[in-house]
């Protein structure tokens, strides 16, 4: 029943088919505890299906999922108790107030009876909905309902949060609040796997990125580590224009292309290799006037990977 406890999520050969379509294709993925992982990919890449498989809402065609060491197939109850999932589309009981809505889920998650009310107040404050605590949910705006959904997701303090487009329907201020909330959650040791199309926002608070394309995991790793493994650099020389042939035949250099008056390229080996390359260029008499690392965003990495597969 128990799997490696160091991983918050561990999937092995996870596959899900819908008739002739393979939504998730033999996926092996381990999400570290305490990480905030951005799950990105184009429409139809299998992000939502993957989140639903991990949360136990969908049964895999083959393979397995373990949450905090508990396999969903063998111990679904234990696994579910340890995760909070905010689906892309979900309903709320509109005839209840937020307090009554959360009270139901607090009971369902077996939250200690004596502290249910204080926990509800605390969670609604966390998501900025405490003013509406006793108003019927049918009067809440879309963004407020999204916040109530988020409150339900974190109500039982699960060690793992799965969020599918959590910022959907939120105004810019609320998005900032959401980011702060997720950061606080991760700082307390929680693990978060968040799917979103707003890549610039994910950049703000994610520590890892997992890129899905057509059901396959095409990249997974730490954002910081990615920078140490491969650097994207920009080079300018005087007098211009710079020529891509300048880097031909140099080890570890790839994807060189001229953009404006600069030559952009990738160098394997991180900062050390980039410094060695600069030394080599100067030694070879190349008149370098500018040599800088480009701060590569999730969006750049994602687009590069997806375009290279196209």
């Amino acid at each position: 029943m128990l799997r490696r406890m160091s991983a918050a999520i561990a999937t092995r050969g996870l596959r899900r088919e819908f008739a002739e379509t393979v939504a998730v294709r033999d996926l092996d993925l381990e999400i570290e505890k305490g990480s905030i992982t951005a799950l990105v990919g184009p429409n139809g890449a299998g992000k939502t299906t993957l989140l639903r498989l991990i949360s136990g809402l969908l049964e895999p065609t083959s393979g397995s999922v373990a949450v905090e060491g508990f396999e969903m197939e063998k111990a679904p109850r234990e696994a579910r108790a340890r995760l909070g999932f905010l689906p892309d589309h979900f309903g709320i009981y509109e005839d209840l107030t937020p307090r009554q809505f959360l009270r139901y889920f607090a009971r369902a998650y077996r939250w200690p009876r004596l502290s249910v009310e204080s926990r509800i107040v605390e969670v609604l404050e966390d998501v900025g909905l405490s003013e509406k605590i006793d108003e019927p949910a049918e009067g809440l705006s879309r963004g407020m309902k999204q916040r109530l959904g988020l409150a339900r997701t974190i109500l039982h303090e699960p060690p793992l949060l799965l969020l599918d487009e959590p910022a959907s329907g939120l105004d810019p201020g609320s998005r900032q609040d959401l980011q702060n909330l997720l950061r606080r959650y991760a700082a307390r040791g929680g693990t978060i796997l968040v799917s979103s199309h707003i890549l610039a926002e994910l950049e703000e608070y994610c520590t890892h990125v997992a890129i899905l394309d057509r059901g396959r995991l095409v990249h997974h790793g730490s954002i910081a580590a990615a920078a140490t493994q491969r650097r994207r650099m920009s080079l300018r020389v005087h007098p211009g224009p710079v020529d891509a042939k300048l880097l031909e035949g140099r080890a570890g250099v790839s994807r060189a292309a001229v953009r404006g008056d600069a030559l952009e390229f990738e160098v394997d080996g991180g900062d050390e290799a980039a410094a060695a390359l600069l030394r080599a260029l100067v030694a070879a008499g190349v008149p370098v006037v500018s040599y800088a690392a480009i701060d590569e965003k999730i969006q750049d990495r994602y687009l590069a990977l997806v375009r290279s597969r196209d």
Partner: protein
Amino acid sequence: MIDDVCAALPEIPRRAAAECARARLVVSGATVTVLSFCLYLLSTFADERTFNLFTILWVLDAVVLVGLGSARVMASVSDEKRLGTWELQLLTPLSSRELALGKLLGAPLFAVWLFVLLLPWNAMAVARSDVVSAARGLESLVLLIAATFLAWSVSLLVSAYTSSKQGVSDGVKIFMLAPLIPFAASAISLVISPDDRARAIRYLGVDTPPWLFLTVSSVIFGAWALESARARIAVDKLEPLLPWRLPAFILFIELYQCGFGPLGLAVGVIVPCAILVAAAVGEQWGPSEWRRWLERPKRFWSQAPCWIYGLAACAASALVVFALRAYSPIDGSTAAYSLLVLVFVARDLFFLQWMRLRVRRNPELLAFVYIGIAYALPALIIGVLHVPDAAWLALPFLSKGRGVLVNILPGAAQAILVGAALSREVRLLSRAPR
């Protein structure tokens, strides 16, 4: 005690909060009280044979509990699937049993409230009646509660089978509710009848009071329906379970029918096979289900299609009926016919599965067209050629002059051929590249 129940089944306090607001309880309470008082007042002026308060109040009770209550239970899971809240419930660690019981007891809370309001007036009607004894009033109460349990359980079963994208079709609803109708009608007619109970029902050789027979039957069928609804919810919750429901129901139906006397052809053979075919059609077992089943040896038994278990149950039952034909009052030809029908049903089920693997669009419809032709064409040829003696070669007919095995042989050969074709398709499917 109430706190413990609410803690175990949080659906009950949720429903109470949503549907039993104080204003609603007060208004409904006042309405029921005024209505009951008026009826009571009227009854004091009228002759009991023309205006029987006992009957009128029990009709109201039945409408409230069986009618309103069942409607609320039937909407319980299906409404949640439509609104998108069902998945939130599936995500909780609540077990399928806790969810099922919560829906069963929580959804009809308002109906229960109305019934509780009516109950004292029922007691007063019995007290002032010259015809109805207190014992008979109690019998009516017990029977109504049992019939309500059956109605709610079947409603929950229907609701649990609703898909999130499309509701249960009317055909399926009618199929699932059909067994309930005669039961509920009999039970309710007995509940509301002020006269002496109808003559006793002879069951297992014992004369049983109808109210008792219907009460026990309702509780047994209700328990089966509730457990089946729970099992369907367990499928949504990915809880491991054995597909025992169909075989258990088929065997139970046969045993239950045995209580009335020797098994006739209709109840002993046709009814179980009809249940089996309907379940096989409703199960929607397509290529991805086959693949998922065959690729997970650990869940081989728990994820097997229900028609396989149902077919095994029908086969076991037919073999027992046939083996015991010499020692039981069961008609010998019925016993042999049960085997004959079984091989044809097996052939048709294999063909249905084969079509599901071969045809993408409407495989069930096409399968039934071909199966219909497989029965109609030989019948037509035999009719045109006037050779009824040859019917046993292609149709489920017993040829009197031949032994049982010879009679079964043509049907068995067809079943084996179609089964082999199905087996080949399954092998191809499991080897197919992804």
